[in-house]
Protein backbone atom coordinates (compact mmCIF):
# COMPACT_ATOMS: atom_id res chain seq x y z
CA UNK A 1 0.00 0.00 0.00
CA UNK A 2 3.03 2.28 0.18
CA UNK A 3 3.11 3.02 -3.54
CA UNK A 4 -0.32 4.69 -3.63
CA UNK A 5 -0.22 8.48 -4.08
CA UNK A 6 -0.48 10.70 -0.99
CA UNK A 7 -3.50 13.00 -0.51
CA UNK A 8 -1.59 16.02 -1.82
CA UNK A 9 -0.42 14.18 -4.94
CA UNK A 10 -4.01 13.04 -5.55
CA UNK A 11 -5.20 16.64 -5.29
CA UNK A 12 -2.60 17.99 -7.76
CA UNK A 13 -3.08 15.10 -10.21
CA UNK A 14 -6.78 15.81 -10.58
CA UNK A 15 -6.28 19.42 -11.69
CA UNK A 16 -3.93 19.01 -14.65
CA UNK A 17 -1.80 15.87 -15.00
CA UNK A 18 -4.82 13.55 -14.86
CA UNK A 19 -7.54 16.02 -15.77
CA UNK A 20 -10.73 13.96 -16.03
CA UNK A 21 -11.94 15.59 -19.24
CA UNK A 22 -8.80 16.21 -21.31
CA UNK A 23 -6.63 13.31 -20.21
CA UNK A 24 -9.05 10.55 -19.27
CA UNK A 25 -11.91 11.56 -21.64
CA UNK A 26 -14.46 10.85 -18.92
CA UNK A 27 -17.75 12.59 -18.25
CA UNK A 28 -18.16 13.82 -21.80
CA UNK A 29 -21.97 14.06 -21.77
CA UNK A 30 -22.16 17.06 -19.40
CA UNK A 31 -18.97 18.48 -20.92
CA UNK A 32 -20.69 18.81 -24.26
CA UNK A 33 -24.28 19.31 -23.21
CA UNK A 34 -24.27 22.08 -20.60
CA UNK A 35 -21.41 24.22 -21.88
CA UNK A 36 -23.51 26.59 -23.98
CA UNK A 37 -23.24 29.17 -21.20
CA UNK A 38 -20.96 29.90 -18.29
CA UNK A 39 -23.66 29.75 -15.61
CA UNK A 40 -25.03 26.27 -16.37
CA UNK A 41 -21.47 24.99 -16.73
CA UNK A 42 -20.50 26.32 -13.29
CA UNK A 43 -23.66 24.91 -11.70
CA UNK A 44 -22.97 21.54 -13.29
CA UNK A 45 -19.36 21.56 -12.09
CA UNK A 46 -20.42 22.37 -8.54
CA UNK A 47 -23.12 19.67 -8.61
CA UNK A 48 -20.70 17.03 -9.90
CA UNK A 49 -18.11 18.16 -7.34
CA UNK A 50 -20.57 17.85 -4.46
CA UNK A 51 -21.69 14.37 -5.52
CA UNK A 52 -18.09 13.27 -6.14
CA UNK A 53 -16.93 14.46 -2.71
CA UNK A 54 -19.80 12.86 -0.79
CA UNK A 55 -19.62 9.59 -2.73
CA UNK A 56 -15.85 9.37 -2.31
CA UNK A 57 -16.09 9.96 1.45
CA UNK A 58 -18.83 7.35 1.95
CA UNK A 59 -17.13 4.73 -0.25
CA UNK A 60 -13.81 5.35 1.48
CA UNK A 61 -15.45 4.86 4.90
CA UNK A 62 -17.06 1.54 3.91
CA UNK A 63 -14.18 0.33 1.73
CA UNK A 64 -13.35 -2.59 4.06
CA UNK A 65 -16.92 -3.90 3.94
CA UNK A 66 -17.18 -3.95 0.13
CA UNK A 67 -17.36 -7.30 -1.63
CA UNK A 68 -15.53 -7.24 -4.97
CA UNK A 69 -18.42 -8.53 -7.10
CA UNK A 70 -20.95 -6.12 -5.58
CA UNK A 71 -18.85 -2.99 -5.49
CA UNK A 72 -20.12 -1.41 -8.73
CA UNK A 73 -23.73 -1.76 -7.55
CA UNK A 74 -22.86 -0.18 -4.21
CA UNK A 75 -21.05 2.68 -5.98
CA UNK A 76 -23.99 3.33 -8.28
CA UNK A 77 -26.59 3.29 -5.51
CA UNK A 78 -24.49 5.61 -3.31
CA UNK A 79 -24.07 8.02 -6.20
CA UNK A 80 -27.79 7.83 -7.07
CA UNK A 81 -28.68 8.77 -3.49
CA UNK A 82 -26.46 11.85 -3.50
CA UNK A 83 -27.63 12.86 -6.96
CA UNK A 84 -31.23 12.78 -5.70
CA UNK A 85 -30.22 15.07 -2.81
CA UNK A 86 -28.41 17.52 -5.12
CA UNK A 87 -31.31 17.47 -7.58
CA UNK A 88 -33.87 18.32 -4.88
CA UNK A 89 -31.60 21.06 -3.47
CA UNK A 90 -31.22 22.64 -6.91
CA UNK A 91 -34.96 22.46 -7.52
CA UNK A 92 -35.55 24.16 -4.15
CA UNK A 93 -33.01 26.99 -4.35
CA UNK A 94 -32.17 27.47 -8.04
CA UNK A 95 -35.42 26.51 -9.76
CA UNK A 96 -34.70 28.20 -13.12
CA UNK A 97 -31.26 26.61 -13.34
CA UNK A 98 -32.67 23.21 -12.42
CA UNK A 99 -35.23 23.57 -15.23
CA UNK A 100 -32.52 24.61 -17.70
CA UNK A 101 -30.21 21.71 -16.83
CA UNK A 102 -33.16 19.31 -17.02
CA UNK A 103 -32.19 15.65 -17.34
CA UNK A 104 -28.45 16.32 -17.13
CA UNK A 105 -28.53 16.54 -13.32
CA UNK A 106 -29.92 12.98 -12.90
CA UNK A 107 -27.48 11.86 -15.60
CA UNK A 108 -24.65 12.58 -13.12
CA UNK A 109 -25.48 9.08 -11.80
CA UNK A 110 -23.94 7.48 -14.88
CA UNK A 111 -21.10 10.01 -15.11
CA UNK A 112 -18.01 7.85 -15.53
CA UNK A 113 -15.78 10.26 -13.56
CA UNK A 114 -17.43 9.47 -10.25
CA UNK A 115 -17.52 5.68 -10.68
CA UNK A 116 -13.92 5.79 -11.89
CA UNK A 117 -12.74 7.79 -8.86
CA UNK A 118 -14.61 5.49 -6.47
CA UNK A 119 -12.93 2.51 -8.10
CA UNK A 120 -9.42 3.95 -8.46
CA UNK A 121 -9.06 5.93 -5.26
CA UNK A 122 -11.87 5.81 -2.70
CA UNK A 123 -12.16 2.02 -2.46
CA UNK A 124 -8.44 1.73 -1.67
CA UNK A 125 -7.37 4.77 0.33
CA UNK A 126 -8.43 6.53 3.55
CA UNK A 127 -10.92 9.39 3.83
CA UNK A 128 -8.32 12.15 3.65
CA UNK A 129 -6.83 10.91 0.39
CA UNK A 130 -10.28 10.22 -1.07
CA UNK A 131 -11.60 13.69 -0.30
CA UNK A 132 -8.42 15.38 -1.57
CA UNK A 133 -8.78 13.34 -4.75
CA UNK A 134 -12.44 14.32 -5.11
CA UNK A 135 -11.69 18.03 -4.66
CA UNK A 136 -8.81 17.89 -7.14
CA UNK A 137 -10.83 16.04 -9.78
CA UNK A 138 -13.78 18.38 -9.24
CA UNK A 139 -11.56 21.43 -9.77
CA UNK A 140 -10.09 19.86 -12.90
CA UNK A 141 -13.58 19.08 -14.22
CA UNK A 142 -14.76 22.60 -13.37
CA UNK A 143 -11.81 24.19 -15.17
CA UNK A 144 -12.40 22.11 -18.28
CA UNK A 145 -16.13 22.86 -18.29
CA UNK A 146 -15.84 26.60 -17.69
CA UNK A 147 -13.10 26.87 -20.32
CA UNK A 148 -15.24 25.30 -23.02
CA UNK A 149 -18.31 27.23 -21.87
CA UNK A 150 -16.49 30.58 -21.91
CA UNK A 151 -15.22 30.03 -25.47
CA UNK A 152 -18.62 28.93 -26.73
CA UNK A 153 -20.52 31.73 -25.04
CA UNK A 154 -18.13 34.51 -26.12
CA UNK A 155 -18.03 33.37 -29.75
CA UNK A 156 -21.70 32.47 -29.87
CA UNK A 157 -23.26 35.56 -28.33
CA UNK A 158 -20.45 38.06 -27.78
CA UNK A 159 -21.37 38.11 -24.10
CA UNK A 160 -20.17 36.30 -21.03
CA UNK A 161 -22.61 35.74 -18.15
CA UNK A 162 -24.65 38.70 -19.41
CA UNK A 163 -21.74 41.15 -19.82
CA UNK A 164 -21.06 42.35 -23.36
CA UNK A 165 -17.45 41.47 -24.07
CA UNK A 166 -16.96 41.74 -27.81
CA UNK A 167 -18.08 44.87 -29.74
CA UNK A 168 -21.78 44.85 -30.58
CA UNK A 169 -20.88 44.69 -34.27
CA UNK A 170 -19.68 41.08 -33.64
CA UNK A 171 -21.69 38.75 -35.86
CA UNK A 172 -22.66 36.13 -33.31
CA UNK A 173 -21.58 32.65 -34.35
CA UNK A 174 -24.86 31.04 -33.41
CA UNK A 175 -23.48 27.62 -34.36
CA UNK A 176 -21.22 27.78 -31.29
CA UNK A 177 -24.12 27.67 -28.81
CA UNK A 178 -25.93 24.97 -30.83
CA UNK A 179 -25.00 21.28 -30.49
CA UNK A 180 -22.33 21.17 -33.29
CA UNK A 181 -20.38 23.97 -31.60
CA UNK A 182 -19.83 21.75 -28.57
CA UNK A 183 -18.22 19.01 -30.65
CA UNK A 184 -16.08 21.46 -32.64
CA UNK A 185 -14.87 23.49 -29.62
CA UNK A 186 -14.03 20.43 -27.57
CA UNK A 187 -12.32 18.70 -30.48
CA UNK A 188 -10.14 21.74 -31.21
CA UNK A 189 -9.29 22.25 -27.51
CA UNK A 190 -8.37 18.59 -27.18
CA UNK A 191 -6.05 18.88 -30.19
CA UNK A 192 -4.52 22.02 -28.62
CA UNK A 193 -3.86 20.19 -25.35
CA UNK A 194 -2.27 17.29 -27.26
CA UNK A 195 -0.11 19.70 -29.26
CA UNK A 196 1.13 21.58 -26.14
CA UNK A 197 1.88 18.21 -24.61
CA UNK A 198 3.95 16.98 -27.54
CA UNK A 199 5.88 20.28 -27.73
CA UNK A 200 6.69 20.09 -24.03
CA UNK A 201 7.81 16.47 -24.12
CA UNK A 202 10.01 17.28 -27.17
CA UNK A 203 11.69 20.11 -25.26
CA UNK A 204 12.28 17.90 -22.25
CA UNK A 205 13.69 15.21 -24.51
CA UNK A 206 16.21 17.67 -25.95
CA UNK A 207 17.33 18.83 -22.49
CA UNK A 208 17.71 15.28 -21.20
Amino acid at each position, binding site marked *: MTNLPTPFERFIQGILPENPVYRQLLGLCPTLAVTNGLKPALTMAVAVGAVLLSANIIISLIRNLLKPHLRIVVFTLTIATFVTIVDRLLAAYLYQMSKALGPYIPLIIVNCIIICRCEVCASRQNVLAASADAVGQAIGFGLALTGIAAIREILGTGMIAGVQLLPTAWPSWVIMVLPPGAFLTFGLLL*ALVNWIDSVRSNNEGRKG
Partner: protein
Amino acid sequence: MDYIFDIFLISISAALINNFVLYYFVGICPFIGVSRRVDMALGMGSAVTFVMTIAVFLSWTITTLVLMPGAPVSRWVAGHFMSAEKAAGIDLTILTYIIYIFSIASSVQFVEMYVRKFYPPLYKSFGVFLPLITTNCAILFACLTVMSNIIGGENPIEAWDLGRALALGLFGGAGFTIAIVIMAGIREELDLCDIPAPFKGAAITLIVGGILAMAFMGFNGVDSGLKAALTGAP
Protein backbone atom coordinates in the same frame (compact mmCIF):
# COMPACT_ATOMS: atom_id res chain seq x y z
CA MET B 1 -55.53 7.96 -36.50
CA ASP B 2 -54.23 10.77 -34.28
CA TYR B 3 -52.63 8.15 -32.09
CA ILE B 4 -50.69 6.63 -35.00
CA PHE B 5 -49.52 10.11 -36.11
CA ASP B 6 -48.38 10.74 -32.59
CA ILE B 7 -46.36 7.51 -32.42
CA PHE B 8 -44.91 8.26 -35.87
CA LEU B 9 -43.85 11.76 -34.85
CA ILE B 10 -42.29 10.54 -31.60
CA SER B 11 -40.33 7.91 -33.53
CA ILE B 12 -39.05 10.32 -36.21
CA SER B 13 -38.15 12.87 -33.59
CA ALA B 14 -36.27 10.35 -31.40
CA ALA B 15 -34.39 8.75 -34.28
CA LEU B 16 -33.48 11.73 -36.48
CA ILE B 17 -34.50 15.22 -35.42
CA ASN B 18 -33.48 15.09 -31.77
CA ASN B 19 -30.92 12.31 -32.20
CA PHE B 20 -29.78 11.11 -28.78
CA VAL B 21 -26.08 11.34 -29.59
CA LEU B 22 -25.88 14.36 -31.85
CA TYR B 23 -28.53 16.54 -30.26
CA TYR B 24 -28.69 15.57 -26.58
CA PHE B 25 -25.06 14.38 -26.22
CA VAL B 26 -25.95 11.21 -24.33
CA GLY B 27 -24.00 8.05 -25.03
CA ILE B 28 -20.91 9.99 -26.15
CA CYS B 29 -18.54 7.55 -24.42
CA PRO B 30 -19.36 4.54 -26.68
CA PHE B 31 -19.76 6.95 -29.63
CA ILE B 32 -16.05 7.77 -29.31
CA GLY B 33 -14.83 4.52 -27.77
CA VAL B 34 -16.52 1.80 -29.84
CA SER B 35 -16.88 3.50 -33.22
CA ARG B 36 -13.66 2.12 -34.70
CA ARG B 37 -15.21 -0.58 -36.91
CA VAL B 38 -18.63 -0.84 -38.52
CA ASP B 39 -19.46 -4.35 -37.25
CA MET B 40 -18.54 -3.44 -33.67
CA ALA B 41 -20.61 -0.28 -33.91
CA LEU B 42 -23.56 -2.28 -35.22
CA GLY B 43 -23.23 -4.75 -32.31
CA MET B 44 -23.12 -1.94 -29.78
CA GLY B 45 -26.04 -0.18 -31.41
CA SER B 46 -28.28 -3.23 -31.44
CA ALA B 47 -27.39 -4.08 -27.84
CA VAL B 48 -28.27 -0.52 -26.77
CA THR B 49 -31.56 -0.59 -28.71
CA PHE B 50 -32.46 -3.93 -27.13
CA VAL B 51 -31.73 -2.86 -23.55
CA MET B 52 -33.23 0.59 -24.04
CA THR B 53 -36.59 -0.86 -25.10
CA ILE B 54 -36.63 -3.19 -22.09
CA ALA B 55 -35.53 -0.43 -19.69
CA VAL B 56 -38.17 1.97 -21.00
CA PHE B 57 -40.84 -0.71 -20.60
CA LEU B 58 -39.70 -1.39 -17.00
CA SER B 59 -39.49 2.26 -16.02
CA TRP B 60 -42.88 3.09 -17.56
CA THR B 61 -44.50 0.19 -15.68
CA ILE B 62 -42.82 0.97 -12.36
CA THR B 63 -43.54 4.67 -12.62
CA THR B 64 -47.24 4.26 -13.43
CA LEU B 65 -47.88 1.45 -10.98
CA VAL B 66 -45.68 2.37 -8.02
CA LEU B 67 -43.90 5.72 -8.11
CA MET B 68 -46.51 8.20 -9.38
CA PRO B 69 -48.53 10.24 -6.89
CA GLY B 70 -51.58 8.08 -6.17
CA ALA B 71 -50.23 5.05 -8.06
CA PRO B 72 -52.38 1.89 -7.62
CA VAL B 73 -49.83 -0.51 -6.10
CA SER B 74 -48.37 1.90 -3.57
CA ARG B 75 -51.88 3.02 -2.63
CA TRP B 76 -52.96 -0.59 -2.10
CA VAL B 77 -49.89 -1.38 0.04
CA ALA B 78 -50.17 1.82 2.07
CA GLY B 79 -53.88 1.19 2.56
CA HIS B 80 -53.00 -1.59 5.01
CA PHE B 81 -51.14 0.83 7.26
CA MET B 82 -53.06 4.11 7.10
CA SER B 83 -56.41 5.63 6.23
CA ALA B 84 -57.57 5.55 2.60
CA GLU B 85 -57.28 9.35 2.08
CA LYS B 86 -53.72 9.40 3.38
CA ALA B 87 -52.79 6.40 1.24
CA ALA B 88 -54.15 8.12 -1.90
CA GLY B 89 -51.76 11.03 -1.37
CA ILE B 90 -48.64 8.91 -1.24
CA ASP B 91 -45.87 10.08 -3.58
CA LEU B 92 -42.69 8.11 -4.18
CA THR B 93 -41.28 10.21 -7.05
CA ILE B 94 -38.21 11.05 -4.97
CA LEU B 95 -37.07 7.44 -5.37
CA THR B 96 -37.16 7.51 -9.20
CA TYR B 97 -33.42 7.87 -9.86
CA ILE B 98 -32.43 5.04 -7.52
CA ILE B 99 -35.16 2.75 -8.83
CA TYR B 100 -34.33 3.51 -12.49
CA ILE B 101 -30.63 2.86 -12.20
CA PHE B 102 -31.36 -0.31 -10.26
CA SER B 103 -33.84 -1.55 -12.88
CA ILE B 104 -31.41 -0.77 -15.71
CA ALA B 105 -28.57 -2.62 -13.98
CA SER B 106 -30.72 -5.65 -13.24
CA SER B 107 -32.29 -5.76 -16.72
CA VAL B 108 -28.82 -5.69 -18.27
CA GLN B 109 -27.83 -8.55 -16.00
CA PHE B 110 -30.96 -10.56 -16.88
CA VAL B 111 -30.62 -9.94 -20.59
CA GLU B 112 -27.02 -11.05 -20.44
CA MET B 113 -27.83 -14.30 -18.63
CA TYR B 114 -30.85 -15.05 -20.84
CA VAL B 115 -29.03 -14.41 -24.11
CA ARG B 116 -25.99 -16.42 -22.98
CA LYS B 117 -28.18 -19.40 -22.13
CA PHE B 118 -30.56 -19.43 -25.09
CA TYR B 119 -28.89 -17.55 -27.97
CA PRO B 120 -25.13 -18.24 -27.78
CA PRO B 121 -24.38 -16.78 -31.28
CA LEU B 122 -26.16 -13.54 -30.38
CA TYR B 123 -24.27 -13.47 -27.09
CA LYS B 124 -21.01 -13.80 -28.98
CA SER B 125 -21.88 -10.91 -31.25
CA PHE B 126 -22.95 -8.67 -28.34
CA GLY B 127 -19.75 -9.70 -26.58
CA VAL B 128 -18.34 -7.26 -24.08
CA PHE B 129 -20.85 -4.54 -24.92
CA LEU B 130 -23.70 -5.76 -22.74
CA PRO B 131 -22.14 -5.09 -19.31
CA LEU B 132 -20.87 -1.70 -20.52
CA ILE B 133 -24.42 -0.61 -21.25
CA THR B 134 -25.30 -0.24 -17.57
CA THR B 135 -23.37 3.00 -17.43
CA ASN B 136 -24.57 4.23 -20.81
CA CYS B 137 -26.22 7.60 -20.29
CA ALA B 138 -28.51 7.10 -23.30
CA ILE B 139 -30.57 4.42 -21.52
CA LEU B 140 -31.09 6.42 -18.35
CA PHE B 141 -31.87 9.45 -20.51
CA ALA B 142 -34.63 7.55 -22.33
CA CYS B 143 -36.14 6.47 -18.99
CA LEU B 144 -36.00 10.04 -17.67
CA THR B 145 -37.66 11.41 -20.80
CA VAL B 146 -40.48 8.92 -20.38
CA MET B 147 -40.78 9.89 -16.71
CA SER B 148 -40.97 13.60 -17.45
CA ASN B 149 -43.75 12.87 -19.94
CA ILE B 150 -45.72 10.89 -17.36
CA ILE B 151 -45.25 12.98 -14.24
CA GLY B 152 -43.96 16.38 -15.32
CA GLY B 153 -46.83 17.46 -17.58
CA GLU B 154 -49.56 19.73 -16.24
CA ASN B 155 -52.27 17.99 -18.24
CA PRO B 156 -52.80 14.37 -17.08
CA ILE B 157 -54.63 13.49 -20.33
CA GLU B 158 -51.43 14.16 -22.30
CA ALA B 159 -49.43 11.69 -20.20
CA TRP B 160 -47.73 9.06 -22.34
CA ASP B 161 -49.09 5.53 -22.52
CA LEU B 162 -46.96 2.42 -22.97
CA GLY B 163 -47.05 2.56 -26.80
CA ARG B 164 -45.55 6.04 -26.95
CA ALA B 165 -42.91 5.13 -24.37
CA LEU B 166 -41.89 2.02 -26.28
CA ALA B 167 -41.72 4.01 -29.53
CA LEU B 168 -39.29 6.39 -27.86
CA GLY B 169 -37.14 3.54 -26.54
CA LEU B 170 -37.03 1.62 -29.81
CA PHE B 171 -36.41 4.57 -32.12
CA GLY B 172 -34.11 6.35 -29.68
CA GLY B 173 -31.96 3.24 -29.85
CA ALA B 174 -32.28 3.19 -33.63
CA GLY B 175 -31.08 6.79 -33.74
CA PHE B 176 -28.10 5.87 -31.59
CA THR B 177 -27.31 2.99 -33.96
CA ILE B 178 -27.57 5.26 -37.02
CA ALA B 179 -25.21 7.82 -35.49
CA ILE B 180 -22.61 5.32 -34.30
CA VAL B 181 -22.61 3.32 -37.57
CA ILE B 182 -22.18 6.46 -39.71
CA MET B 183 -19.37 7.50 -37.40
CA ALA B 184 -17.67 4.09 -37.67
CA GLY B 185 -17.90 4.23 -41.47
CA ILE B 186 -16.24 7.63 -41.51
CA ARG B 187 -13.53 6.52 -39.08
CA GLU B 188 -12.66 3.49 -41.20
CA GLU B 189 -11.94 5.91 -44.06
CA LEU B 190 -10.12 8.32 -41.73
CA ASP B 191 -7.57 5.61 -40.94
CA LEU B 192 -6.29 6.02 -44.50
CA CYS B 193 -5.96 9.79 -44.22
CA ASP B 194 -2.99 11.85 -43.14
CA ILE B 195 -4.24 13.54 -39.98
CA PRO B 196 -2.07 16.11 -38.13
CA ALA B 197 -0.57 14.40 -35.07
CA PRO B 198 -2.37 16.38 -32.33
CA PHE B 199 -5.76 15.59 -33.89
CA LYS B 200 -5.25 11.81 -33.91
CA GLY B 201 -7.74 9.78 -31.92
CA ALA B 202 -10.52 11.48 -30.02
CA ALA B 203 -10.01 15.03 -31.31
CA ILE B 204 -10.74 14.28 -34.98
CA THR B 205 -13.64 12.05 -33.93
CA LEU B 206 -15.20 14.96 -32.08
CA ILE B 207 -14.75 17.33 -35.00
CA VAL B 208 -16.31 14.81 -37.40
CA GLY B 209 -19.10 14.44 -34.83
CA GLY B 210 -19.60 18.20 -34.99
CA ILE B 211 -19.96 18.10 -38.77
CA LEU B 212 -22.40 15.18 -38.46
CA ALA B 213 -24.40 17.16 -35.89
CA MET B 214 -24.60 20.05 -38.39
CA ALA B 215 -25.90 17.62 -41.01
CA PHE B 216 -28.52 16.30 -38.59
CA MET B 217 -29.61 19.88 -37.84
CA GLY B 218 -31.01 19.78 -41.36
CA PHE B 219 -33.87 17.66 -39.97
CA ASN B 220 -35.01 20.59 -37.80
CA GLY B 221 -38.61 21.47 -38.41
CA VAL B 222 -39.37 18.23 -40.24
CA ASP B 223 -41.71 17.19 -37.42
CA SER B 224 -43.91 20.28 -37.55
CA GLY B 225 -43.96 20.12 -41.35
CA LEU B 226 -44.99 16.46 -41.29
CA LYS B 227 -47.63 17.17 -38.69
CA ALA B 228 -49.11 19.94 -40.82
CA ALA B 229 -49.05 17.72 -43.93
CA LEU B 230 -50.59 14.69 -42.20
CA THR B 231 -53.35 16.40 -40.25
CA GLY B 232 -54.16 18.90 -42.97
CA ALA B 233 -53.85 21.78 -40.51
CA PRO B 234 -52.32 25.04 -41.80
